[in-house]
């Protein structure tokens, strides 16, 4: 930055008590209407989840993880379970694998429904803020029928699943999914089709694929650049059922800037993500066999784990979510647990994406990266 620009720059805190920045803060250096420097500040949500994990045994650990990101509780707690299952080899019954995959995809749809509303609210249209959240009520109702709680579901345990699918749950899921399918064209008109939306998001928050990978971005923020990097296809987890059906990873290939993406491409990418999830659930439901839902010896084996390190990974709605566990011989609690959230990288990447944009673009850029403070503060 040439020094003479900075002397007439003014600093504004897009601060923690801000209407649309609840729980995080960024120091923006403004020259006129343009942002010259952006310094994201983390730590407002820090509840030391990693230290708490050192005091929880292996059945209770996943409950801390699902409270880090309420929007994708199934997806947040699964890496911990996968890490435990890598350390001690529990054989997960077939039915549990398919139920887990169905619920992960159902949770991805729920998280994207939330994101539609939040992004539209940040851009100013409060009608579009509440319409997807009305559909979300049906999804949460289905979650509550299955597990008993809307957000903090604690559904998966090492070795399988806690609650079984009941006919009422299947009918409620059917209602929720048909509601998503039927409302999709309406939301496409209101979001992608709205001229004011295109004015606010085209060419905003622009980065190339190379930069995205260097910052550690993953998930829809990278697939929008055209790279089909999806953990469900790259590193299929043995205890999930993604490799049982054939589906392909949705990506966006924008012709006027091929290897790059901006806020509008990320929106189109998330529309495709929802269609893929719906398609996966429709394919998996008929394959659901009868049988036990949890490995009978799971309780005994998962009580004290042998020495070892496990690295559980899952493709969350916002990117790759991973948990790394290290356990000592015959210890009830992990020696060290590292949680890596997808939004850790997307919040950091604001530091490079935002300079150059206008002050009014900041909510659009921030909203399009689909951030969640729980992930970078843990």
């Amino acid at each position, binding site marked *: 930055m040439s020094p003479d620009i900075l002397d007439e720059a003014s600093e504004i805190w897009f601060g923690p008590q801000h209407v649309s920045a609840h729980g995080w803060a960024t120091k923006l250096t403004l020259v006129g209407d343009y942002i010259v420097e952006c310094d994201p500040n*983390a730590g407002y949500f820090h509840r030391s989840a990693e230290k708490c994990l050192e*005091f929880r*045994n292996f059945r209770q650990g996943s409950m801390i993880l699902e409270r880090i990101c309420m929007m994708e509780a199934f997806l947040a707690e699964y890496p911990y379970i996968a890490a435990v299952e890598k350390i001690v080899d529990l054989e997960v019954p077939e039915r549990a694998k398919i139920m887990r995959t169905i619920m992960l995809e159902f949770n991805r749809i729920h998280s994207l429904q939330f994101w539609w509303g939040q992004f539209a609210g940040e851009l100013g249209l409060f009608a579009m803020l509440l319409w997807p959240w009305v559909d979300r009520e049906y999804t949460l109702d289905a979650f509550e029928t299955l597990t008993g709680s809307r957000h903090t579901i604690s559904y998966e345990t090492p070795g399988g699943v806690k609650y079984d699918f009941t006919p009422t749950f299947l009918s409620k899921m059917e209602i929720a999914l048909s509601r998503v399918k039927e409302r999709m064209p309406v939301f496409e008109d209101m979001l992608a089709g709205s001229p004011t939306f295109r004015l606010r998001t085209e060419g905003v928050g622009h980065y190339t694929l190379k930069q995205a*990978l*260097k*910052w550690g971005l993953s998930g829809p923020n990278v697939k929008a650049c055209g*790279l089909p990097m999806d953990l469900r296809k790259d590193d299929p987890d043995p205890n999930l059922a993604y490799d049982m059906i054939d589906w392909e990873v949705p990506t966006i290939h924008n012709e006027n800037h091929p290897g790059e993406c901006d806020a509008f491409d990320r929106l189109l990418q998330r529309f495709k993500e929802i269609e893929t999830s719906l398609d996966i659930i429709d394919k998996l439901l008929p394959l659901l066999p009868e049988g036990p839902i949890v490995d009978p010896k799971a309780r005994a084996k998962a009580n004290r784990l042998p020495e070892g390190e496990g690295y559980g990974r899952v493709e969350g709605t916002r990117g790759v979510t*991973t948990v790394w566990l290290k356990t000592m011989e015959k210890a009830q609690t992990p020696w060290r647990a590292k949680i*890596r959230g997808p939004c850790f990288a997307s919040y950091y990447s604001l530091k490079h994406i935002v300079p150059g944009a206008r002050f009014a673009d900041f909510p659009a850029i921030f909203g399009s990266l689909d951030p969640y403070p729980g992930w970078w503060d*843990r």
Partner: protein
Amino acid sequence: MSDAPGSASTVARAVINKYPDIESKPLDGNKVELIVPREKIREVVTMLDEEISDALPESMFGVDLTENKYELIYIFWSHEGKMLIQLRVQLEGETPEIESVCDIFPGLEWHERETHEMFGINFMHHPDLRPLLLPDELVGKFPMRKSFETDRSRMDETGLAAPRPRPKPGGESS
């Protein structure tokens, strides 16, 4: 050079024949682990950056092994080769020092800041090592170390109270 999926071992072999004193240990699937000495970390990371075109710096974190012995683990993922490279660095001393790699992979900048404030591992040439997550009163106390005592008044009520057989390296762990 991204080629057949089985390329994790080829990348590891390329690194080994360039730096003989690194030993590698294949993990399950397409993952490989390299034990890297402290002073060679920058060279290995730059070499990884050139070898793998689309390396994703997934995470970097520290592990406290009591008695001032720490371990740094860098994890990189590549979509082309579908491989995961894990670098492990052993560290010694009250506040160990290591070169920072955040100019090669900017994604690790905040990981290094967090490890610095949680474990007290100093990263040389890091642009701004301010505390990332901790409130002011915890800065400098390195809470993630095993020696950081926590409130254990209600430990007996949880099911964890049973004495856990642990290797007795001296330090009293969680």
